[in-house]
């Protein structure tokens, strides 16, 4: 379980990114974290994974409190898929990129191999094993970035805009991939249609605070609520709304 209590965070220039957030995310939940640009989604992720240091409040992963001395253990439990897969893939072979985390855990060669193969098989991309990451398509890179985190067997995965910059087919492939994952998923996204597809719960961040938190349908179908924090209905709902208005006329 991920437990956040009274978490606040300000950048060194004084800009407040997170204001007194309280959250509980249960094991196996699939949560969409939505909000306008600058709402605090990436800042929250950085705090959870320990890239930014917590100054006020606390974050707990199960019994483990996120602190400087526990970061190594925290990062074994929580993985993060970055928005730009090029930031995540830096080795010469896909295999080595996926093996990077397990090798840092000092696993034996056999265990590393097993982890890599499992991750590739789970995502159905075994054929990319010996390819060079920089030669892959955007969608393939995104899936390999997910595999590079999966190979660490995390309990929670944070996804930062997993469907951005992708063509429709690659986007659908990534969504299908996310659907397959059984661990806790927290997905920061502007893709509300995807959230509607695969998340059971939606949290709206607005100016660093939790603006709304509830079941996906309750949140994403509430136009008034969404407009109040610079969001709008998912495209599929907008279409339905237009059709309904046309038929009413």
């Amino acid at each position: 379980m991920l437990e956040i209590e009274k978490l606040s965070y300000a950048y060194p220039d004084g800009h407040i990114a997170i204001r007194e957030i309280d959250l509980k995310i249960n094991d196996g939940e699939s949560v969409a974290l939505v909000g306008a640009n600058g709402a605090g989604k990436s800042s929250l992720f950085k705090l959870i994974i320990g890239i930014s240091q917590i100054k006020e409040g606390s974050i707990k992963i199960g019994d483990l409190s996120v602190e400087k001395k526990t970061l190594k253990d925290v990062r074994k439990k929580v993985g993060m898929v970055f928005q730009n897969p090029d930031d995540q893939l830096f080795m010469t072979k896909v295999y080595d990129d996926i093996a990077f985390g397990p090798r840092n855990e000092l696993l034996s060669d056999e265990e590393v191999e097993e982890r890599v193969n499992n991750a590739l098989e789970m995502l159905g991309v075994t054929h990319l094993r010996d390819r060079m990451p920089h030669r892959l398509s955007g969608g393939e890179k995104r899936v390999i970035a997910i595999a590079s985190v999966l190979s660490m067997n995390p309990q929670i995965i944070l996804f930062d805009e997993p469907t951005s910059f992708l063509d429709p087919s690659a986007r659908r492939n990534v969504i299908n991939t996310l659907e397959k994952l059984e661990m806790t998923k927290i997905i920061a996204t502007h893709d509300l249609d995807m959230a509607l597809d695969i998340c059971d719960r939606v949290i709206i961040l607005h100016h660093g605070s939790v603006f709304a938190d509830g079941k996906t349908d309750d949140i994403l179908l509430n136009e008034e609520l969404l407009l109040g924090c610079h969001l709008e209905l998912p495209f599929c709902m907008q279409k339905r709304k237009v059709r309904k208005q046309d038929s009413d006329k």
Partner: protein
Amino acid sequence: MANISDSMNTINSLEEMAEGKTIIHQLHPMVKLVITLLYIVLVVSFDPYNITGLVVLAFYPVILMALAEIPYKPLLTRMLVALPFSFFAGISNIIFNQKLALMIGGIPITYGVISFFSITIKTVFTVMAVLILIATTSLPQISYQLLSIKVPKLIVEQIMLTYRYISVLLEQVSNMYTAYMLRSPGGKGIKMKDMGIFVGQLLLKSFDRAENIYYAMKCRGYDGHYLYAKPDPIKSADWIFLLGTAFLLIMMRFFDLSQIIGSFL
């Protein structure tokens, strides 16, 4: 743009070469590191006017490249990058050291010219030795060995991350250059008045990218120790290679083998 793309491919090709299975690839990384360091020290310490003695040391890169089955072209291309530095370092010797050393076919050769060639040859040899090391040993293994001979972690991390970030920088240059050229039709490269801003922006953007890559590495357990690259213990074959090569290199350094061989002819 093709040049930037070529550079990125060359960087990657060196790392791919390190995955080879030849006798040199299978040597213990510490042995390769020690021999490379010894070779560099011996080459650099050579008398600046003894070119014939120095040239004999070419045997090391040539034989290693053959044994490691490393293609010559990519290595020579990368080595060319270092030559302008040695050129500018050596050119002052030609200007300031005009003392006559010998005459060849009526053409006076000064000590300055000899030391210029000496510096160039030394640069070629030392850079080749380092490139061969990179082409036969993976970067994590080199890092682990550098740490185990007590090179400060900060320096090892700087070297390794700089190497990793070269491709980031090149990609950034490529994107920014394309964007610039598309908005300056008919232009022949970046104008001098824009160069300061271009380089400044490149630096800032590269910092951002580099920071993200570093975070992504940290999130997957990277701590700069490269413990996973710990090799097997040194075997007797490694010792034989180490002692044999070190003996030969030291002989070449302290005895003029070119003269000894010449005396038999």
